C-alpha cells in the first residue's frame, strides 16, 4: 500500500519538497513518499544527490574578512565621521603613539584629501593655482621676491627711515659741492685785481658770451644760473695757463683735483 503511494508522487511534487527534505524538515509519510520517488525516478534521484552535494559545497565556504579600511571608508563616504567611539569600543590592542598620531591625521585629512582626489575638484584646484601664478607673473611679482620681502610693521618703518635718510644725505652732498664752488668763486674774485690782464681777457670772454646770449637776463644772474658745467671746465682748464704759476699752486693747495668740481651737473639747483 505505501509503495503505490510512493510511485504516485509526481516529479513536480518531489521538486517542491526537495528543499525541505535537504533542510531536514520533512518527516513522516511525506518523507517516505519522497525517498521512494527518489529511488525509482531517473530524473529526480540524481537531482536529489546533486542538490545535496551542491549545498555541501556551498556550506564549505566560510565568511571572508572584509578589508580593515572598509568601515572607515564607508563612514567617510557617508557621515564623514571616521569613528565616534573607537576608543571605547576598541579591541584594546596596544597601538604606538606614532600609529595613533597617524590615525588622527588620517581622520582630519581624509575627507579633504578624498574630496580633492575627485577629478573635478582636483581640476579646479589646479586651475586656481595656475591662474594665480599667471596673474602674479604678469604683475611682475616673483614668488621668490615675496618670500624675501619683510612685511612686519617695524621693518616697513625701518625701510622708510633708511630711504628718507638717503635722500637727506644726497641733498647734503649737493649742498657741500655747491658751497665749495662758491668759495672757489669768491677766491677767484679776490685774486682778480692782481691779475688785471687776465680779468680783462675773462671779461672779453664774457662779452663774447653775452653776444651769444639770448636769455635777456643780467650778466651776473646768468653766471649764477649757468656757472656749473658751462664755466667751470673752462675755468679749471685755463687756470694754470692764465693765472700764472702762483695762482695755480694756490688752486692746487685749495683743491687738489680742480677737475672734480666740473663733474657736478646740478645746474639749477638753487
Amino acid at each position: 500500500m505505501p509503495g503505490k503511494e510512493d510511485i504516485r508522487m509526481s516529479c513536480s511534487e518531489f521538486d517542491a519538497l526537495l528543499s525541505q527534505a535537504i533542510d531536514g524538515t520533512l518527516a513522516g509519510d511525506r518523507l517516505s513518499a519522497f525517498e521512494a520517488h527518489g529511488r525509482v525516478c531517473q530524473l529526480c534521484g540524481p537531482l536529489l544527490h546533486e542538490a545535496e552535494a551542491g549545498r555541501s559545497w556551498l556550506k564549505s565556504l566560510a565568511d571572508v574578512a572584509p578589508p580593515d579600511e572598509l568601515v572607515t571608508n564607508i563612514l567617510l563616504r557617508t557621515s564623514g565621521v571616521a569613528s565616534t567611539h573607537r576608543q571605547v569600543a576598541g579591541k584594546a590592542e596596544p597601538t604606538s603613539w606614532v600609529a595613533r598620531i597617524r590615525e588622527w591625521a588620517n581622520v582630519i585629512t581624509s575627507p579633504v584629501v578624498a574630496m580633492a582626489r575627485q577629478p573635478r575638484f582636483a581640476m579646479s584646484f589646479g586651475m586656481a593655482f595656475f591662474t594665480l601664478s599667471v596673474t602674479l607673473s604678469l604683475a611682475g611679482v616673483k614668488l621668490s621676491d615675496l618670500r624675501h620681502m619683510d612685511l612686519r610693521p617695524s621693518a616697513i618703518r625701518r625701510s622708510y627711515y633708511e630711504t628718507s635718510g638717503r635722500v637727506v644725505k644726497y641733498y647734503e652732498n649737493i649742498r657741500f659741492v655747491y658751497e665749495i664752488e662758491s668759495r672757489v668763486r669768491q677766491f677767484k674774485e679776490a685774486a682778480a685785481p692782481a691779475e688785471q690782464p687776465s680779468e680783462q681777457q675773462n671779461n672779453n670772454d664774457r662779452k663774447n658770451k653775452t653776444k651769444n646770449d639770448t636769455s635777456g637776463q643780467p650778466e651776473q644772474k646768468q653766471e649764477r644760473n649757468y656757472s656749473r658745467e658751462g664755466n667751470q671746465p673752462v675755468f679749471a682748464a685755463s687756470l694754470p695757463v692764465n693765472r700764472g704759476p702762483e695762482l695755480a699752486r694756490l688752486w692746487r693747495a685749495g683743491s687738489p683735483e680742480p677737475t672734480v668740481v666740473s663733474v657736478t651737473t646740478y645746474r639749477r639747483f638753487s
Partner: protein
Amino acid sequence: MEDAHVAALLVRRCVAGDAAAWEEIVQRYHRRIYNLCYRFAGSADDAQDLTQEVFIRMYRTLNSYDVGRGAFMTWITTLTRNLLVDHFRKTKHDRLTDSLDATASDHEDAMPLGERIPDGGPAPDAGVQSRETKETVHQALQRLSPELREAVILRDLQDMDYREIATVLKVPEGTVKSRINRGRAELARLLQRTYRQVM
C-alpha cells in the same frame, strides 16, 4: 526578535542624526553585506566598492525604512541585491567573456579553475587544499546564472529563510525553492566536472 528591535532602534537614532548609531549599523552589517557582494560579484575589489555603494545608498534612504513593513536585515539585503543586479547588468559583457581559466580573486588561491583538478593523490597540505577547494567552489558559483546564484547565496551563505528570500527577490516561495534546488544541483555538476576523480 531582539536583533530586529535593536536594529529598529539604531535606525531611529540614526535618522535623528546620531552619528554613533550610524557607525553601529555599519559595524554590525558591513561584514554580511561585503560577503554577499563578494560571493555574487566574485572579486574582492568589486565587493569593497559595492559594499560602500550599498551603505551610501542606505545612508541616503534610511528614513524610508519602515519598521512595520519588515525586518531591517531583509531591507538592507534587498537594497544590496538591487545594487548587485544593476552591477551585473553593467558588467554583463565582461562576464560573458569569462572563461573557465579566469583568474581568481584575492581571498582564495589565485589559480585558474581548470588547473585545479586534483590528481587523486593526497594533498601535501590540507590547509592549502582547503583554500584551493574554496576558491574552486567560489569560481564555480560565479558560473551560475544570476537568478540561481543569488538564490543559493541567500539561502546557503546568508542563511535566510524562503519567505525572506521571496521578499528580497520579489518572487513566490515556490520559485525560490525551485531556484535553490537548481542552483545547488548546477553547482554540483560544475564541480563534478572539475573534480572528476573525487566525485
